[in-house]
């Protein structure tokens, strides 16, 4: 008997759907779409199936986001984003204040010690936000959001950020978030 490979829906679109739908509805909606996608691929070809899948995901996104806002789910994500970005931005303002008081002024480069303080604070904030997660998927989402919070803070900061600091901060935030989740789970 000849077997045909089963097509998969576009991975990026599926991930986008799951990210926007959240834990509550994500798998359910993705499962329904997948069934329909397989049926269309079999009946009308892979190309038609993929186009249909893409259009369904794109058309669903606004409604899914609206549902998440209403459920308070998105609010938590925004709170995590703010709880990571806000301390870093406040520290940036504090370092600006410190540097603007140097009697003969100085540039935007920050001492390594001050960047280390930033790193410690972002790790603590990310770990606390990671501890809010109750499932592994949620922990992964919050870790990504904490990395986004770091990216937002770095973008909005006045002080210069060397490459090692940017890379370290973008890695430390999700790692601390996952560590916070694991620590909470083991207690």
């Amino acid at each position: 008997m000849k077997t045909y490979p089963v097509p998969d829906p576009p991975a990026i679109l599926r991930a986008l759907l799951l990210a926007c739908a959240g834990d509550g509805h994500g798998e359910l909606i993705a499962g329904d779409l997948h069934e329909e996608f397989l049926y269309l691929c079999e009946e009308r070809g892979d190309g038609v199936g993929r186009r249909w899948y893409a259009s369904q995901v794109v058309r669903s996104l606004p409604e899914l986001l609206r549902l998440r806002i209403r459920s308070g789910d998105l609010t938590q994500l925004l709170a995590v984003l703010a709880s990571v970005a806000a301390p870093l931005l406040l520290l940036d303002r504090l370092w600006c204040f410190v540097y603007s008081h140097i009697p003969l002024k100085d540039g935007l480069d920050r001492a390594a010690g001050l960047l280390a303080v930033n790193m410690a604070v972002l790790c603590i904030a990310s770990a606390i936000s990671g501890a809010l997660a109750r499932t592994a998927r949620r922990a992964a989402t919050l870790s990504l959001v904490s990395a986004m919070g770091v990216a937002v803070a770095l973008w909005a900061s006045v002080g210069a950020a060397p490459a090692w600091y940017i890379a370290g901060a973008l890695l430390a935030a999700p790692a601390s978030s996952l560590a916070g989740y694991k620590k909470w789970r083991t207690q």
Partner: protein
Amino acid sequence: MKWVKRIGMAVAALVILPALTLLLLGLRSGAGRVQSSVEVQASPDQLWTWIDDGDHVKQWVSWTVEMKPWSPRAAVGATRSAVMRDANNGGAQMVIDGTCTEYAPPRTLGVKLSVPNEFEGLQTYHLTDLGDGRTRLVIEMSYHFDSALARLMEPLITPSARKKMDGDLARLKSLVESKAELR
């Protein structure tokens, strides 16, 4: 509730511990004082121009936008102001008023610096002839901040000010030894 307490305690510790550390560091003997020195292949007379003349000063003190000449003339009691660009304050320009407290060319220059509601300080330049056409320049600076927050942050400000001064002196050495002309 237990987690809320823990998070509250962690946040409090993050604020209180560094504040206490800064308070204690602010009590050290060298608080608010910066000293830096450099040896330059130039005579004291040649080097004097670089600390006395505003157009020369502007070349090696970074972030200086303008340095006005002494008024009415270079002597004790004369005044001159420096306009600095503050990149940490949205590029705002800050005028630092200077009053000459000691004028003994080519050995010592003392300038009292002040920015109302910001800080007051005394900056002294000492030039020592080392022979063989070499001169040691020592810059001493002591300052006092008006705002309580700036006073608390002094242990962070002073090392950065020293680093900045070291950078400026390295630039001065490079400029003088390459016999740079006025721009």
